[in-house]
């Protein structure tokens, strides 16, 4: 119980709450990209992350941690933002693999984002392509330490810099102006829009 003692920044109650909080992390069972295949071995008998109190949870309203397991396409990003905003605080985000940092092997794709941290705040990034379950467990244990010491507060950043994140999200999700498009293709698309009405 040594680490529960009050210090300058945190009271005994804060430490006690975080002590229980870190031992019952519920992670949202939302799988994106290829990293999702690393989670079944992590959850089942060989690595068994349930011994740390980590269980998969079906709804974002009851989840504490969001795992973004791999590349994020634009459609997925929209859902991730919806999910992230539904989760109650405190909440944490774990980003898996190189795809969420710089795009990975999909860095020049027209449909996958390159840096997840521009759109939602990320607490921990796990290296690897994809990270092994050992790395996943290491990241979750680091997250537990961060929760106990009160460091894992990226969700506060989302509220403070809400406009910055919304600006970035809107920029990629509503591609209002063509980035490379010419007037020729625009006219084709306008004709197409007309066809939709019929």
């Amino acid at each position, binding site marked *: 119980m040594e680490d529960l003692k009050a210090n300058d920044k945190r009271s005994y109650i804060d430490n006690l709450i975080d002590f229980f909080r870190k031992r019952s992390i519920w992670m949202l069972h939302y799988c994106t990209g290829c990293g999702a295949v690393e989670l079944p071995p992590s959850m089942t008998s060989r690595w068994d992350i349930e011994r740390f109190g980590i269980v998969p949870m079906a709804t974002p309203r009851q989840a504490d941690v969001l795992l973004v397991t791999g590349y994020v396409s634009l459609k997925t990003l929209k859902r991730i933002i919806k999910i992230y905003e539904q989760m109650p605080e405190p909440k944490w985000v774990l980003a898996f693999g190189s795809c969420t940092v710089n795009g990975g092997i999909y860095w020049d794709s027209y449909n996958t984002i390159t840096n997840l941290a521009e759109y939602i705040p990320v607490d921990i990034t796990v290296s690897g392509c994809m990270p092994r379950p050992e790395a996943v467990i290491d990241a979750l244990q680091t997250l537990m330490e961060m929760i106990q010491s009160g460091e894992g507060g990226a969700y506060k950043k989302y509220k403070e810099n809400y406009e910055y994140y919304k600006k970035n999200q809107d920029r990629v999700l509503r591609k209002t102006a063509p980035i490379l*498009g010419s007037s020729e293709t625009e006219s084709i698309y306008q004709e197409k829009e007309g066809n939709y009405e019929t």
Partner: protein
Amino acid sequence: MKLDKESIIELLNQKGVEVLDLYPNQISVNIKKDNLLNHLVFLRSIGFDHLSFINAVDFIDEGEFELVYHVWSYTHKIHVLNKVRISRNNPVIPTIVNLWEQAQFYEQEIHEFFGIIFEGNKDLSPLFLENWVDIPPLRKDFDTKEFSVRLFGAEIRR
């Protein structure tokens, strides 16, 4: 009645189309855009009952799109590739939804990724992309790297 490959080639030659013998169970046919519907109706009438897929290929140097209609027959066990070339500047082709219903999804996808307009198809709404207003992304003149750098800020490291 099961027809062998030679008699199918002969039948098609009588119709005046260009036939290429590829593999023991595969032939390739080059057709004109105006002749497309007639040709597919004919194929269907002699027992080619399954449309497997529709491909689009962008030949940017020749200024043409090539559409490949893969048709398979369960009775003859023959796979026919029907190739049509259309102009890149005016990419319009009649729809074949009335012949095979599953063509709906292939045509929607090709329209989304190549911008080819299928005349007569009532629903060419996007399937995969959301709010896409740029050049159709699978055209050869679409620079996916430049797009990624501009929109997502991808870094180029050497």
